């Protein structure tokens, strides 16, 4: 008996998007979480977006995902990063009211037809004939399903460290998922340990804000979602600094930190280091940033961004005393480090299905990533592909050339992970094209086809799209003082505002994103054309078909390992062959050459 179509284990940022996508595509979906009060909990910082992440959130939104919409419902401080730089690297970011986000997200999911939320601890994935067939919970309840998506995050064999102490936990005061981690190893997954950390939370009334610089939100805040019309700033963040005294205290107590005493084996993220890490690795820096970020409107908890630490409670307290403005700060929760299991993502296909157990999908930190947005992007793709698989349809594979989600997934499954993976704009070859302002044009039509974007939203999108594209065409075709408007703008003869004022009223941008789109399309036009050409050439080469009767074992110069993999996966095209883990550019070039030779030989044999 099949109880449901898709089971999603874990209701963090990955699990939410996975369950939401699967249910929206018409499948009965069960979302199981250890604690129903913490659906969509932001375990670490209270913000969504940022460089590369902001573009990623837009992509999730363009594909009908939940993150940006709920994020805008609870956003309390908005900034467009890199505002003074070009549109390709501008990225929206919002500070969230954490409690609001959690509640709004739970409610959002509860209203989705076909989606059931359930509280339980999954201990085992049920596998029948190499295929996932359901899960078993701690109570011994067996739930059958056609596909299972695991998004356990730091709960997977989680171990919290504070100073000399450590204890199993998935997040402060929540139980870890130990049996499931064991079960994955039994199923044959190669797993490893990673580490992350979070700073202390301080009581707002005990902070002397006069010692900090206020960081206001943007006067004209940009929403996370394409479908949000207006958002407001409701709080102010603050910037301050550590000093030599703080560093001295930390240095003297390094032996007591979980990280530097050797008690932590997992590898932590380089871009989000703990304060002790920063002091050890950059001894010549006399100060480091601290950002104070309120965790919500109706709470006094303040997130001390930059002070992530695994030092004992009393050391954390001691170094806080040395920070101007935090002399009397009261900690409501101490900072801590957490180690957890991950499964190397080279064990996945580009659809995020595992190569070991069919119909089993993994998303989020279990794949070695860090960040809410990275998790959500993978969750969305895993949800879509679980649904497609059960519908008997080919998987959705997002190419690198089309999206940051594609860049991330391709990096993960082809390169694997040896430290927590974070998305950066510099990872994308087509950074000038993969922008926040055009994510909907890139992805919404696809999402609509899949059933992820409803008709009403789609009509709204089409209007936005048409307005932008007609305005762009107008800029390139119509002239201002004898030269095309686009050229007049890019050569600095007129400003963007002036260019826009030349548009017929019905083509004028209705928000900042539409303005940025036009700005980008004009500024980068030379590059965008070139990128289209490069993409076409790659496409042509990638679509080179591999003859099904070709015997890979006779391809000279390939390693036995690759020959075996090729024979096993039987890729149909070069594009598919490229996705085989361990496939190198040199091997691929060799393969292309051999296929061409093979085809030539065949055609001469036939004639």
């Amino acid at each position: 008996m099949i109880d449901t179509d898709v089971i999603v284990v874990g209701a963090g940022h990955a699990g939410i998007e996975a369950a939401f996508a699967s249910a929206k595509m018409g499948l009965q979906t069960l979302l199981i979480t250890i604690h129903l009060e913490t659906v969509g909990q932001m375990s670490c910082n209270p913000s969504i977006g940022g460089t590369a992440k902001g573009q990623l959130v837009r992509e999730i939104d363009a594909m009908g995902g939940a993150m940006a919409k709920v994020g805008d419902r609870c956003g309390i401080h908005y900034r467009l990063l890199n505002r003074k730089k070009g549109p390709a690297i501008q990225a929206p970011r919002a500070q969230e009211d954490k409690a609001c986000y959690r509640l709004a997200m739970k409610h959002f999911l509860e209203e989705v037809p076909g989606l059931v939320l359930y509280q339980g601890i999954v201990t085992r994935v049920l596998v029948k004939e190499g295929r996932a067939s359901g899960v078993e919970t701690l109570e011994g309840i067996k739930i059958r399903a056609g596909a299972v998506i695991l998004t356990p995050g730091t709960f997977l064999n989680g171990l919290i460290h504070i100073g000399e102490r450590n204890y199993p936990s998935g997040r402060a005061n929540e139980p870890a998922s130990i049996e499931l981690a064991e079960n994955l190893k039994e199923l044959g997954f190669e797993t490893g340990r990673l580490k992350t950390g979070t700073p202390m939370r301080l009581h707002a009334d005990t902070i002397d804000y006069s010692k900090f610089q206020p960081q206001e939100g943007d006067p004209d805040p940009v929403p996370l979602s394409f479908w949000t019309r207006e958002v407001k700033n409701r709080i102010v963040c603050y910037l301050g600094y550590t000093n030599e005294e703080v560093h001295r205290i930390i240095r003297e107590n390094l032996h007591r930190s979980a990280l530097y005493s050797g008690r932590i084996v997992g590898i932590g993220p380089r871009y989000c280091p703990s304060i002790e890490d920063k002091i050890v690795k950059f001894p010549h820096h006399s100060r480091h940033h601290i950002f104070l970020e309120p965790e919500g409107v109706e709470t006094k908890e303040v997130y001390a961004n930059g002070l992530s630490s695994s030092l004992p409670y009393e050391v954390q307290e001691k170094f806080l005393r040395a920070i101007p403005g935090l002399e009397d700060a009261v900690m409501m929760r101490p900072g801590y480090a957490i180690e957890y299991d991950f499964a190397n993502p080279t064990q996945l296909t580009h659809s995020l299905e595992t190569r070991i157990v069919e119909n089993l999908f993994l998303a989020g930190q279990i794949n070695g990533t860090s960040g809410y947005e990275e998790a959500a992007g993978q969750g969305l793709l895993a949800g879509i592909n679980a649904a497609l698989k059960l519908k008997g349809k080919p998987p959705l594979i997002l190419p690198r050339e089309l999206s940051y989600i594609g860049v991330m997934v391709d990096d993960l499954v082809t390169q694997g992970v040896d430290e927590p993976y974070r998305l950066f704009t510099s990872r994308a070859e087509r950074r000038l094209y993969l922008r926040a302002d055009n994510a909907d044009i890139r992805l919404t039509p696809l999402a609509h086809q899949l059933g992820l974007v409803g008709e009403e939203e789609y009509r709204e999108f089409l209007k936005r799209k048409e307005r932008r594209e007609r305005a762009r065409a107008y800029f390139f075709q119509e002239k201002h003082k004898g030269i095309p408007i686009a050229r007049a703008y890019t050569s600095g003869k007129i400003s963007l505002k002036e260019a826009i004022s030349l548009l017929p009223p019905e083509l004028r941008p209705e928000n900042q994103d539409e303005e940025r789109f036009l700005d980008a399309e004009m500024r980068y036009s030379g590059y965008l054309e070139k990128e289209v050409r490069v993409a076409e050439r790659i496409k042509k080469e990638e679509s080179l078909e591999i003859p099904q009767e070709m015997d890979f074992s006779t391809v000279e110069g390939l390693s036995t390992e690759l020959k075996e993999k090729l024979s096993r996966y039987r890729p149909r095209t070069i594009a598919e062959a490229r996705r085989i883990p361990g496939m190198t550019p040199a091997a691929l070039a060799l393969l292309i050459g051999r296929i061409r030779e093979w085809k030539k030989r065949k055609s001469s044999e036939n004639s």
Partner: protein
Amino acid sequence: MFEDTIVAPATPQGRGAISMVRLSGPEAFPIAEAIFKPSGKIATRKAVYGKFYDFTQGSFFDEGIAIFYRAPHSYTGEDMVEFTPHGNPIIVWKIVELATAKGARLARPGEFTYRAFLNGKMDLVRAEAVEELVEAQSFEGVKLSFSQLQGSLSKRVEELRERLLSSAVLLETEIEFPDEGIEINRDELRKTLRDSLSSVRDLLSLFETGKQLLEGVTLVLVGKPNSGKSSLFNAILEEERAIVTEVPGTTRDFLRERIIIDGVAFILIDTAGMNPEPRDEIEREGMRRAELLLREADGAILILDGAKPLEPPDHKLINLLSKHNKVVVINKTDLPLQLEPEEVKSLTGESPLLISAKKRQGLEGLKKALKEKFILKQPAQGLYINSRQRIALKRAEEHLLRALESEAPEIVAQELREAILSLEEILGKITPQEVLDNIFSRFCIGK
């Protein structure tokens, strides 16, 4: 990296004192031991004497030296064996045949070096230098390609790449971490870009001179029938190679010979039989082929018969060569001069050299004229670039120019990335993770 073992003769076909056969790959040792029976214990990287054994017939057929190399300490980076039997192609091919019978595969051209490259023993520039060293046409060319093999160009390109990578890292840090307040100094960035651009242009200027040192200067000898082309050709070579007769059009095949002038090889092509007024299909074909040669050559030597006034065929040839780099020779000065050197000069734009091929007069003057006309001034840098490297450098130049034209960090970063990729293409490496790795080793990123 490679799972199969390859075998091939390493010395040219033909008979000689000794030849060499090479084996490379995981099975090189067992295969070699089936063919070669050493007189003592095999020590790696030491010459060992032994006998070559035909295991199909159970008999020995030659004796010689073998050297065993254990991976990674070999040319290819794999297990390798070099056999030195006596220089008879029958022996060489027997060894190859026996090796293939034991599972080795005949190597494709250049495959040993290709493996050395893929196994990280040398970068692409050095791998190419191996080929160029083997093909060099003069001793100066040999020295040049050896310097390249030692890494002269690789080092320059690597330094250039490092410099650009540093700028890219700074720029990417500014882009990726806006909260950190890192702003890169634009003047310094522009200076790096400008310096790099001039380094790239420096390298680009090495193409013509390097090509000349390595490949030599190809010159076509052009003249109407009986103008004394072949005599001059022979006189320059100072040996009788072509049949010199009074009958026009005796030699229809083109002869090529090489002379060295000041360390540069000149490849001279005698177009004997070339008739600007062809009388039959054979001569028409000869003319077509001569014109084709001219298109690919670096220049020509135009030979005029000094014993006759200028005739229509001479005018045709002067026209044909109007756009070519050339030296003009008036031959047969041992006979009474029938044409006016001043007229020749006004027609061809070149001061004609007076030569008697028959009497070997004026040849030194010709060599001097060839040197002045064709030998490029060599920059004493001990490096050069080949066509592939030139294309990549041209692309790098273009991207650097565009990076200098823009103020927008994302555009400069894009151009920098492309420029770096072009340089990496020269070395044959691609390292996408490196920028990020660099960011993290140099900066303290907190957010």
